[in-house]
């Protein structure tokens, strides 16, 4: 029974990784941009929520609603005025710029908040659990997983049921022809990054509620996110959730065997999937 419990906990942990990864997947899917600052933006989001909670005395679940539009605006501006200038045939400029942005963010957070670990204030909800048979499930992991599902459903609805979603997909396919349809690719990219930052904020909420964070943990979140995206298949949102679950299950199973193996087991699972399916589990047909 302990293995069932381990796997269920791993699946729920996968929800957190899927949240880390969904924004990365969205941005890569639309503009083929690998944002190396993604993990640091999640950490920045957690600090923003912490500031709002501290200054306004709000619950983190209310503060996140205020943080979302702020992060959207930040993402929109970041893409419009910085990252759009790096896009082109050469993949190196966006990598270099986002790598630089990652360092800038880490140092700015270090300057502003010191290296001390922080955590969003928890209440009874964050430590509550429900009993399902013989397995005890934390309410917070369940909420995280449900949020990941809702985010992916929401993104799929946006992509496949709205004119903005059509514009996202058309611009992703062919930005030059999209501009002949009256679409401004630069604006589409800015909106996409803004939406990715809303997801980043949701991920930041659960990161801050479930664990300690400090200015230097961004790159590790990026690695988990990146692995989830690659396992799922670049640009596939449901694939990203599956990728997150695979890493989560591998980590909890690894930890059950030996606590030192937790992180390593996730990376090994990533490598095994890459060996078997180099393009991920659900690659897009026309990439």
């Amino acid at each position, binding site marked *: 029974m302990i293995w069932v419990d381990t796997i269920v906990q791993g699946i729920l942990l996968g929800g957190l990784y899927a949240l880390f990864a969904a924004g990365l997947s969205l941005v890569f899917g639309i503009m083929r941009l690998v944002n190396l600052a993604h993990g640091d933006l999640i950490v920045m989001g957690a600090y923003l929520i912490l500031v709002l909670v501290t200054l306004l005395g709000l619950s983190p679940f209310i503060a996140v609603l205020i943080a979302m539009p702020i992060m959207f605006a930040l993402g929109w501006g970041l893409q419009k005025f910085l990252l759009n200038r790096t896009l082109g045939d050469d993949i190196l400029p966006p990598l270099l710029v986002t790598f630089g942005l990652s360092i800038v963010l880490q140092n700015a957070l270090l300057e502003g908040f010191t290296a001390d670990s922080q955590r969003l204030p928890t209440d009874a909800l964050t430590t509550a659990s429900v009993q399902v048979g013989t397995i005890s499930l934390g309410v917070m992991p369940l909420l995280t997983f449900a949020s990941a599902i809702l985010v992916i459903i929401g993104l799929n609805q946006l992509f496949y049921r709205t004119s903005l979603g*059509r514009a996202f997909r058309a611009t992703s*396919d062919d930005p030059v022809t999209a501009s002949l349809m009256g679409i401004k690719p630069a604006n589409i990219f800015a909106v996409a990054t803004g939406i990715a930052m809303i997801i980043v904020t949701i991920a930041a909420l659960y990161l801050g509620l479930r664990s300690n964070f400090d200015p230097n943990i961004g790159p590790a979140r990026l690695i988990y996110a990146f692995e989830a995206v690659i396992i799922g298949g670049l640009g596939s949102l449901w694939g990203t959730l599956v990728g997150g679950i695979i890493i989560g299950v591998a980590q909890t199973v690894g930890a059950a065997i030996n606590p030192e193996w937790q992180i390593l087991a996730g990376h090994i699972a990533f490598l095994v999937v890459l060996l078997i399916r180099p393009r991920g589990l659900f690659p897009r047909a026309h990439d």
Partner: protein
Amino acid sequence: MALLHTDGLTAHYGDFQALFGVDITLDQSEVVAIIGANGAGKTTLMRSISGVLRNAPGMVRFDGANIGGQPADEIMAQGVAMVPEGRKLFPSLSVEENLLIGTYGRKTGGHWNLKTVYDLFPILRERRNNPGTALSGGQQQMVAIGRALMSNPRVLLCDEISLGLAPVVIKDIYKAVPAIKAAGASLIVVEQDIGQAMAVADRVYCMMEGRVTLSGTPDTLSREAIHNAYFGAAA
């Protein structure tokens, strides 16, 4: 006053100059054909007018206003739509979504909508849920034309719409031209098939090596003059 005209239009790809002072005019409710051999500059002319290839301001005027130098999305928003060479359908969109993308960010209104486009090309109604790129070449061309029409353009630029298609399919596609014209659009049609161009156009321009070498109405242009303009006088 011409609806659209180019005034000494030049175009470059890096150091290579592709157009040398091209002057063409398109009047209201007119169909103008641009003919010429491969490399004559026809597609470059279309790309320059549509804004895909940016040029200096003042070289292209539409409805009295300068559109030269503007980006493609702004030119399209003003009423100049293009059917690009090679169809360029969006592979991740279905047929219907490819059509609907032509209306992005615009208020609905005008003659062309999903119903009228499907009436023009009934086969697309049957295939509306298929991926656009899963269709035959001729059907893809119909989607590309329909997609451009969905924006209710005043000028439709058609770049090599017969390229790679069987004669019977080309005939079907060109049958749509009168209906498009009747709905109020003027057309510039780039065509390598001289006979097809002569049949559909009110006026014809022939291009060679980035220059207009001949222009006139189909009934005033002799076979020999077209041959000379198309291949060069020495040919």
